[in-house]
């Protein structure tokens, strides 16, 4: 009677897992966030340049990230991630752009706007801007210009500047470069100005965006740049997936060959385990990178290890003459401390890596941590339950590889 119930439960569980994995695997794989190394893209680390007497603070960097974010949105740069790193760095990751380098070159402009007279006196800066818009010149050259509008204080300052410099040029400087130097015809009191110069429509639009979003509080230098072409990205992904499948199949065959019935249970656990890991990756919005795949490979090894420890222990208990059910109980109890301590110590390493690591190391630590926790969970609940169920079905110890 109990045997029939157990068979029914096992059949139901296996069917359920089959159905779930059939429907869940593909959507999960499609929703995993792939790192730039797997999909192609550009990663740039910018470092703030410390000017004399000016300290770069985390606050400056936060402000810069905010401004960069505004620029990314306004320029329509696709699939960009921006975040501060350490005390004076900003990381920009761009995945969706055809020419990500060009995008970064525009983004990292300081866009410091200054109005200067012939003597070099600065009358006002981009700080007093409320708007900047690109517009076509009316002279039919096809060139563009940028119309500026100042705030109240800016209007006053600009009025003073134009009043003091009638008949003389007022030089418009962007990032220490003179862009144009119109001669002031008369005082301008309405707070409007135009930057002429020979811009194409695209250049004028980009510049207008930069001026609108405000100047970066510091200038940035490229410290590190990694770009992966789409060919290599796709190549690495395909090869890693193939290698992963081959490695997994080798494990599945080995486990059944060596441990027989429990090996089969381990194999089913591994299916649940991979769904759990992928699902957690998707739920946490974690990024899967190439080192991350290696992290998963390692955690699969540890997941199998948990099963190996349990089965070896059960075999030992069986050899001592215990009944199957008693051997499973004792085997689990005794295997537990070993599995627990081994996984926790590895988890300590992974946590330290996650905290101190950046980029590739972090990706690795994240998948390793997720993998260890998932493997502990599956081994201690599902594997145990299945073993007890199977013990109700067959008491034949040969099925346990003894």
């Amino acid at each position: 009677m109990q045997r029939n119930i157990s068979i029914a439960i096992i059949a139901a569980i296996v069917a359920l897992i089959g159905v779930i994995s059939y429907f869940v695997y593909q959507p999960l794989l499609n929703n995993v966030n792939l790192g730039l190394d797997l999909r192609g893209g550009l990663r740039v680390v910018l470092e703030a340049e410390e000017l004399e007497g000016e300290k770069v603070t985390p606050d400056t960097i936060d402000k810069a990230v905010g401004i960069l974010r505004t620029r990314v949105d306004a320029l329509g740069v696709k699939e960009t991630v921006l975040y501060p790193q350490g005390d004076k760095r900003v990381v920009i990751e761009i995945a969706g752009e055809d020419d990500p380098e060009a995008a970064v070159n525009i983004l990292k402009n300081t866009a410091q706007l200054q109005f200067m007279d012939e003597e070099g006196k600065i009358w006002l800066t981009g700080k007093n801007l409320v708007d900047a818009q690109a517009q076509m010149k009316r002279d039919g050259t096809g060139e563009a210009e940028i119309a500026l509008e100042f705030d109240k204080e800016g209007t006053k300052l600009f009025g003073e500047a134009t009043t003091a410099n009638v008949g003389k040029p007022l030089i418009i400087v962007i990032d220490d470069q003179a862009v144009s130097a119109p001669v002031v015809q008369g005082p301008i009191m309405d707070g409007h100005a135009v930057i002429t110069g020979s811009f194409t429509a695209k250049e004028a639009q980009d510049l207008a965006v930069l001026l609108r979003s405000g100047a970066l509080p510091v200038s940035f230098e490229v410290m590190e740049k990694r770009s992966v072409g789409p060919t290599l990205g796709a190549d690495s992904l395909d090869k890693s997936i193939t290698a992963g499948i081959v490695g997994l199949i080798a494990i599945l065959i080995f486990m059944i060959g060596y441990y027989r019935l429990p090996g089969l249970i381990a194999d089913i656990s591994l299916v649940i385990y991979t769904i759990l890991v992928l699902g957690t990756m998707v739920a946490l919005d974690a990024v899967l990178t190439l080192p991350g795949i290696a992290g998963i490979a390692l955690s699969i090894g540890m997941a199998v290890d948990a099963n190996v420890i349990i089965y070896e222990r059960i075999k030992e208990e069986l050899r001592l003459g215990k009944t199957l059910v008693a051997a499973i109980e004792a085997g689990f109890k005794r295997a537990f401390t070993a599995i627990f301590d081994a996984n926790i110590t590895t988890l300590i390493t992974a946590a330290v890596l996650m905290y101190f690591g950046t980029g590739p190391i972090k990706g690795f630590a994240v998948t390793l941590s997720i993998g260890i926790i998932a493997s502990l969970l599956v081994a201690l609940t599902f594997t145990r339950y299945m073993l007890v169920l199977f013990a109700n079905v067959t008491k034949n110890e040969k099925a346990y590889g003894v």
Partner: protein
Amino acid sequence: MQVIKRRKWFYVLSLIIIIPGIISLLLQGLNLGIDFTGGSITHIRLPSEATIAEVRAVLDKQGLEKAEVQKSGDEFYLRTSELTQEETDELMAALKEDFSEVVFMSAESVGATIGGELTRNALLAISIATVLMLLYISIRFEWTFGIAAIIGIIHNVLVVLGVFSIFQWEVSSAFIAAILTVIGYSINDTIVIFDRVRENLRGTRKQDYEELVNRSVGQTLNRSINTVLTSVFPLIALLILGGSTIKLFVLAMLIGFVTGAYSSICIASSTWYDIKTRKAAA
């Protein structure tokens, strides 16, 4: 398993592997990649008949005489001083003039200061992880196990570092991740054996420690072997089928795992025995 009786032989075997590695580390060090030294690597795919000499000729024309060129199948790695975007663009344009098809694979450019930081952070991470593990093991087991486990870890890391130094395989930031994995794996592997020693230890007198260690290692031997086998399967698959970019990363883990399994069985338990008996004698 007569581990303890043969332990002197295991120590000698380990030293035979480790000492040349240490000598090599002192004499020629590691072949540090641009992650540590700064510089640029441009990775491209060229038509299969392209040769290193042809690629070098293009680099010379660009004023990059000091560049190193490596070929792997139809893929080329050009290691140069740090290039700006314009210089990379010029280089790509020049290559496209000389070769019928140039596929851009990847480009990396790292400033010189990043490398020092990377090493510092890695050493910091390793030290903190080691201290925390030692602490955890001391609480859950006993400090003697902690010391023996750490000696095992140092042993494994030295083997991997030594092999990479002897063969002058390039070390990148991913290598640090590999070393840390090896540390995690070693500790995992060792703990399971120590767990059995701890279990058998109850009520054992010190003159029976030799038998105790031998028995514990023997009882866990199947597990030790099966686990290293199943852990190594995916690595071998990655090594053979994976992309060229992760070969060295996987190789470092592979060497570390095999060494880790060996040291857990033969070195860590022997060291624990030596520490424990010496302590008991004192």
